[in-house]
């Protein structure tokens, strides 16, 4: 491997080549996003009128002089072809390439595998964004900290409640210098409530040698597996990872790299006070939709529907959707292409996907209405609001854990006057009777 060490011009950073990598995962990931990921790869699911990964891309496009974005994942190449075509038209200054892993290599493994592609054009540093993160991506602020501190790595951090912190990677930092002193993924005990947002800026000269030495270490001694907390037991340990863990090539930034960076490198944390959420479960698309809509509203986006007595902003209505003027929408509602919303309908805190139809006088709250699904007249499809600061999308009802957001998969039907509450409904189901707190298979 040849590592180029470009000249660093720290004065304004404008000459230093910067790239970005978006980690998009693959089809065996995103299982928690079912039933919505059954029909569409999660990164392409639309929130606030755009694919999740588009929101990453717009943030990247705001960083000066970024010329290339690499999307790394193990979906088939065809999956992102149309998206990349559209995005290349929208962001002509950026070259977007998709780099396909043929097996899951882990976040660090993927970077290392495609190091030649990343290093092409001799970037001095590059951003890494997890596609399943919803945040304001303050990349320029991270870049400024990177340059100010002559850093080798910068991680985006955010504060969460103490009891939520142990579900994430926890960062201990020096309050003054912002240097990362310690990093631990999903600790058993409380370490810090400053957590890893899944957004990084790495100096190329630092990160690849670090990954390489981690690989070397891996072969010399067995890796310590961090113990998942009970909350995340399933997701973080058994569900996706077991097989992958056995393969030696799987290396993850969070578990395998960041802790060592904290020990030995100029590793800093930029703490964002802005919004941040993970998009893991399908239900988390609803808060993500809300946050991106609010951001669009605050920045005066022209895409949003004009507020009126029946439009409580922010609301996104696709130009091809048909919404009856007597329907009341918002706040935090996205209506997808060709969707039809009838007279006297109420929609709040919800996503209505392409070609869905909501008949007259129906009420949709805290829900996702899947592609081509139909909601009958006077029907009520309802989830439960979760606290603003909550990082979980499940709630306990009658002692049972249920999804707070109601989700109808593709081509579901809800009969006239039928009520659906806190349910996840797999594609092609017809709901003719009231149902609550169930997964409908």
């Amino acid at each position, binding site marked *: 491997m040849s590592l180029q060490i470009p000249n660093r011009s720290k004065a304004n950073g404008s000459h230093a080549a910067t790239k970005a990598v978006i980690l998009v995962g693959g089809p065996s990931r995103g299982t928690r996003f079912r039933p919505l990921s059954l029909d569409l790869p999660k990164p392409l699911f639309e929130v606030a009128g755009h694919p999740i990964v588009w929101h990453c891309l717009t943030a990247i496009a705001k960083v000066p002089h970024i010329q290339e974005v690499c999307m790394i994942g193990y979906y088939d190449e065809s999956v992102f072809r149309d998206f990349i075509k559209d995005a290349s038209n929208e962001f002509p200054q950026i070259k977007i390439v998709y780099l396909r892993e043929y097996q899951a290599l882990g976040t660090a493994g993927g970077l290392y595998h495609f190091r030649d592609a990343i290093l092409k054009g001799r970037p001095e540093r590059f951003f890494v964004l997890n596609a399943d993160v919803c945040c304001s991506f303050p990349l320029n602020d991270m870049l400024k900290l990177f340059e100010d501190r002559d850093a080798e790595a910068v991680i985006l951090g955010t504060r969460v409640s103490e009891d939520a912190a142990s579900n994430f990677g926890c960062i201990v930092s020096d309050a003054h210098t912002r240097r990362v002193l310690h990093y631990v993924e999903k600790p058993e005990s409380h370490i810090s409530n400053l957590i890893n947002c899944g957004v990084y800026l790495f100096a190329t000269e630092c990160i690849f040698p670090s990954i390489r030495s981690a690989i070397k270490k891996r072969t010399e001694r067995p890796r310590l597996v961090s113990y998942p907390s009970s909350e995340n037991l399933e997701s973080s340990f058994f569900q996706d990872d077991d097989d992958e863990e056995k393969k030696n090539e799987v290396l993850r930034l969070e578990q395998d790299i960041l802790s060592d960076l904290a020990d030995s490198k100029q590793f800093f944390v930029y703490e964002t006070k802005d919004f941040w959420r993970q998009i893991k479960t399908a239900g988390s698309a609803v808060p993500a939709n809300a946050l991106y809509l609010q951001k669009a509203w605050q920045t005066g986006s022209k895409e949003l529907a004009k507020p009126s007595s029946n439009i409580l902003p922010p609301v996104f209505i696709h130009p091809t959707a048909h919404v009856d003027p007597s329907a009341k929408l918002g706040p935090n509602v996205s209506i997808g292409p060709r969707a039809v919303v009838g007279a006297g309908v109420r929609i709040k805190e919800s996503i209505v996907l392409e070609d869905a139809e909501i008949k007259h006088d129906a009420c949709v709250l805290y829900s996702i209405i899947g592609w081509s699904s139909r909601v009958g007249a006077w029907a*009520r499809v309802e989830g439960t609001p979760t606290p603003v600061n909550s990082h979980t999308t499940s709630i306990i009802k009658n002692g049972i854990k249920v999804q707070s957001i109601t989700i109808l998969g593709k081509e579901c039907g809800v009969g006239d006057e039928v009520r659906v509450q806190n349910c996840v409904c797999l594609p092609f189901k017809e709901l003719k009777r009231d149902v609550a707190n169930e997964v409908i298979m």
Partner: protein
Amino acid sequence: MKEDSPHSRRWLRHSSTPSRTLSPVHDPRMRARRYSTLTLPKPLVEFGNKRMILHQIEALAEAGVTDIVLAVNYRPEVMEKYLAEYEERFNVKITFSIETEPLGTAGPLKLAEEILGKDDAPFFVLNSDVICDYPFADLAAFHKAHGDEGTIIVTKVEEPSKYGVVVHKPNHASRIDRFVEKPVEFVGNRINAGIYILNPSVLKRIDLRPTSIEQETFPAICADGQLHSFDLEGFWMDVGQPKDFLSGTCLYLSSLTKKGSKLLTPPNTPYVHGGNVLIDPSAKIGKNCRIGPNVTIGPDVIVGDGVRLQRCVLLSGSKVKDHAWVKSTIVGWNSTIGKWARLENVSVLGDDVTIGDEIYVNGGSILPHKSIKVNVDVPSIIM
């Protein structure tokens, strides 16, 4: 017959001769309910847009009753103004007979002996919560024809095991042999409907103490072969519980439909769905509503646009805002239901309750003057 028999439970009873009637109100649970969910004394609650007691007074007056005694355990002042009006309208005399201590279901008759026993004419007794097509004239004729001491109206039920069942003497169509409380095996399907006609001689069988007409007086009359049954035609319901109030309303509205009553909104009205819809002329109905079946809408009610109503009762002055969905619910006086709210599963709103926009209420009993801002997901009482 204890708690579960349909008439010993709640007691607004009238007894009457061709010249008198009696009607007590002394079940503590009933008082609790009156004071909690629905603020009016139950006889004044509108059933099919007509106060319960008016259904009864009207039928009694039509059968020639001139004296009506309301057996009560307190004096509800609110009732007096209505009763004065009814006295005039139907040319009847209404007297309160007030218990100072609970006297059971028979004791109040003894207490009113002076009025009920002033001549030899028989008197009617009825439970206040029972609603039916009161057949008082036929009952009196039947009673006179058999010449014995008492006649009780019986009604056919599907599940006799839940009630006290009447068993007749062998080879006799009407003379009652005995009562079997909650029979395990089938002995019959006629139950005491809570409406009687009795000769004044019955009063001699009752002591002035807490005593039960079903458990003490009737068995004694039966033993002497002096008690008969009279089959009720048409519907019958004890509407003391909200669930039964709604079911009773359905039966009542169906009977109006059957009779071709002009009170009902014509079924070909665009918003009427499935018929059995009774709307007071002063109520306002918005655009694009679907109303019915089995809906009663009281005076001065306002129903907004795109509202869906079925199997419900909207009491006077209540308001249902646009796009709300209401089923199996009693909406109390002057209550408001918000836009896109959904109420169902025997919800009962007291006086002046407000249900917020988009709120869901599943079997909620909401006490008066409450404002509901979060969903009531499971049946519960909201204090």
